[in-house]
């Protein structure tokens, strides 16, 4: 998760706030300097407000998980009862487990296939590239509810046909993952390709000049350069999966209710703070993982993969 992007750890890059903007030579120009400072101030304020914007609602979600009231919106005093409720209720725990499995599988499949495809598309003939482009964008454009219905219809007849020839397939976690991967595949390809467009080839060539095997070049040069994009794709994929309702609803089978499906079906009778409690615990776990890994990274202070590759 915190596999640092290629260049982060390079000493020349890991400097203070104004590493790129104001090298010493602009210092003499007072007016410019002032404007730069204004820009600097704006950027920082923007960042602060953005994170505030992102986390104030989350703070409320966590706060309301301690709500004694049955309802998400009404404060009824402090209580831990929803934590107890969530953690003893198999109707909440099982969907959570299903969701985590689906999200993890989806993340791995979409990121792997998407990255491989992105690598291939750059080198593919023009026509193939065009075909892929069409598929990628179509997948993003198709309204979810329509593709969900159509997938269900198609898979159902396909399964029926396969059943006739003796292969018995049913709906369940695999079909949900298949649907999620489709959407996230496009997402990963786009993000990875956005990084590859104009990616530094000199390193790859240097590696090849040094007679490194293609595999070694890939793992030690190409991959680290792509790492931020792959990480971004993986994060987005996991997030999509944890939150999807429509595709999951249509492509699920017996016993594969996901957490968002469960939450949405609670609407009719009111969503309880038990869902807040689950959210809060997941946030806590995520934050712990991040803090620990950051701490490990800082302690290790390891050299960057890119530097390793070029020096070896």
């Amino acid at each position, binding site marked *: 998760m915190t596999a640092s992007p290629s260049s982060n750890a390079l000493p020349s890059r890991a400097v203070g706030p104004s590493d790129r903007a104001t090298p010493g030579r602009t210092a003499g120009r007072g007016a410019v300097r002032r404007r730069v400072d204004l820009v600097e101030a704006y950027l920082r304020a923007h960042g602060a407000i953005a994170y505030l914007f992102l986390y104030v609602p989350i703070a409320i979600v966590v706060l309301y998980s301690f709500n004694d009231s049955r309802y998400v919106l009404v404060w009824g005093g402090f209580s831990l009862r929803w934590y107890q409720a969530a953690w003893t209720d198999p109707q909440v725990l099982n969907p959570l487990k299903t969701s985590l499995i689906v999200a993890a599988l989806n993340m791995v499949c979409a990121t792997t*296939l998407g990255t491989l495809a992105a690598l291939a598309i750059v080198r593919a003939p023009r026509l193939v590239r065009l075909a892929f482009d069409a598929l990628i*964008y179509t997948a993003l454009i198709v309204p979810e509810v329509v593709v969900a219905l159509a997938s269900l219809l198609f898979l159902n007849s396909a399964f029926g046909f396969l059943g006739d020839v003796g292969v018995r397939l049913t709906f369940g976690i695999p079909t949900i993952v298949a649907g999620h991967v489709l959407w996230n595949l496009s997402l990963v390809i786009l993000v990875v390709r956005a990084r590859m467009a104009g990616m530094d080839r000199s390193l790859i060539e240097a590696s090849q000049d040094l007679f490194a095997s293609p595999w070694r070049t890939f793992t030690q040069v190409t991959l680290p350069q792509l790492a931020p994009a792959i990480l971004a794709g993986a994060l987005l994929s996991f997030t999509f999966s944890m939150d999807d309702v429509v595709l999951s609803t249509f492509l699920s089978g017996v016993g594969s209710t996901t957490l968002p499906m469960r939450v949405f079906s609670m609407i009719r009778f009111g969503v309880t703070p038990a869902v807040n409690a689950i959210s809060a615990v997941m946030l806590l776990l995520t934050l712990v993982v991040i803090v620990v890994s950051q701490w490990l990274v800082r302690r290790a202070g390891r050299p960057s993969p890119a530097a390793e590759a070029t020096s070896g």
Partner: protein
Amino acid sequence: MTDAATGGPARPPLEAAAGRQRGSSRLVALLALPAAAWYVLMLVAPLVTTVVISAGERGDQGGFVPQFTFSAYAALLDPLYAPVLRTTFILAVGGTVGCFLAAYPLAYLLATRGGRRRTLGLILVVIPFWTSFLIRTYAWVTILSPNGLLNGGLGAVGLPPLDLLNGPVAVYIGILYNYLPLMVFPIYVALERLDPALVEASKDLGASRWATFRQVTWPLTLPGVATGVLLVFVPLTGEWVIPSILGGGKSYYLGTFMANQVTDSRNWPLGSAAAVLLIAVMLIVVAVYLRLVGREGLQREVSLL
């Protein structure tokens, strides 16, 4: 990006180097095959199914009866649906512009000022989305409702209350909140790979900061922006849950319409026809857009090198 490590600013453009790889077409096929298979099975086949449904007719109890008719498409021409298209378009454009304005400075900040913490910063952008969509959108209801936290705060400092819930402001806040990462990530990725040597070079040549941004940073990050715009704009054309929760459900959107046709009204042909038309229109828009943006971005890049 990594010039600092290699010390060599001179780089052959991608196109020239690509020749080396031409021999490995088998590898290319192998790498692309799984994704291609996935697309065929999970996208092309369902799409064909959608087209088949759209040519059918609604059965009396819903679903569809196989036919070969364009009646569903003809039904869509009813002027009844014009306001639906208009509100959807305004929402998608407004939401995309809003997300861009919020995302670019944030991505820029992360990529250029993030230092060691940039990955952490990026992850922090996405973590809120690991809570349930409904729950975090409800949190905004708690904040914005007439008796909510915002008005509580305003009242405490003697300001008049704001009536934001069930209005456009609340809808745009909700959209911004839920779509921000889709815009931040591609822009961040583009900025992150931006070669600082180019920025330096521009400065060395005496270009102002603004000129540097306009002529170097912006064109080079355009592909990232284009990706972000796509990732936000396209799903927004089908969005309807956010307007229904934060906007009071008083507007009708294309997404609601299609979902309604599939479930409530059980008019699959009409829903499918709307989807097929939407897909066609969007593909044309995307193709034109990418052509323009892609060209420009590429030319700039080449000319700079």
